[in-house]
């Protein structure tokens, strides 16, 4: 089994209210150095066997149809080193 990680992030030019809420809370707790926060999702997919180009293409399709909504989110796919 190989682990493939899909990161889904709200698009840059779109308001991210969750990130804003976290950003607002940090200084209240004394964390003063943070300038901006964006909050996304991380999916860890355990994939059968070796990760071939075909498998990766399949994961990308899953990322586009279910894991992310392309109108509002971007995703990246990477194979986690063993």
């Amino acid at each position: 089994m190989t682990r493939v990680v899909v990161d889904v992030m709200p698009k840059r030019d779109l308001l991210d209210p969750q990130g804003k809420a976290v950003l607002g809370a940090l200084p209240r707790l004394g964390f003063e150095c943070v300038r901006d926060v964006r909050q996304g999702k991380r999916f860890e997919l355990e994939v059968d066997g070796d990760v071939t180009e075909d498998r990766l293409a399949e994961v990308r399709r899953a990322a586009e149809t279910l894991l992310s909504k392309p109108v509002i989110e971007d995703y990246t796919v990477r194979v986690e080193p063993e």
Partner: protein
Amino acid sequence: MRVGVVTFPGSLDDVDACRAIRLAGGDDVPLWHGDESLRDVDAVVLPGGFSYGDYLRCGAIARFAPVMNAVVAAAQSGLPVLGICNGFQILCESLLLPGALIRNDSRRFVCRDQRVRIERASTAWTAQYTAGEEVTLVLKNGEGGYVANSSTLEELEREGQVVARYLGPNPNGSMHEIAGICNGRGNVVGLMPHPEHAADDLCGAGTDGFRFFTSVLHAALSA
């Protein structure tokens, strides 16, 4: 005239939608998310709530429920479909309507009577309104901010696919103050405020929402 109302796990407003349909003189037909068939209904309502716990994204899991295969196919061939609140989110996830709904810019759940302007009366669900008419519906959502890219917004405006717009201060950060949109044909309508909660004087914000349901009954009769 049979109007189906889909219940997903986590739907909340299915019973109110059924009641509004009955008050309007239609027969409400409960549909289950696992159903493959729409039981010969003449129209479908996707009600509000938190289908599948809003996991992943609002409406993202519901979009793949068995009943949605039938809803998408029927909508594409002209069946009137109204998605309210979570139902609107499901319609966007299903790509029956463009754009998406994100968390309110205020980061607060909004629950209040909301003034909206009906922008388009030539849809299956708004035919008994007059374009430009101002009405009061009920808004209650945490993720009601309508967003789309600029070319989509331009097309919605150009083609007159904005069905309803918020009046007064923008309650949730929706682009172009959009409260509801329709597809090109006007049979599929997504609406963030709830007309089914404004269909009966006894327990709602007046009855301004009632005509969404009488509209579709007339549309079906004359079709």
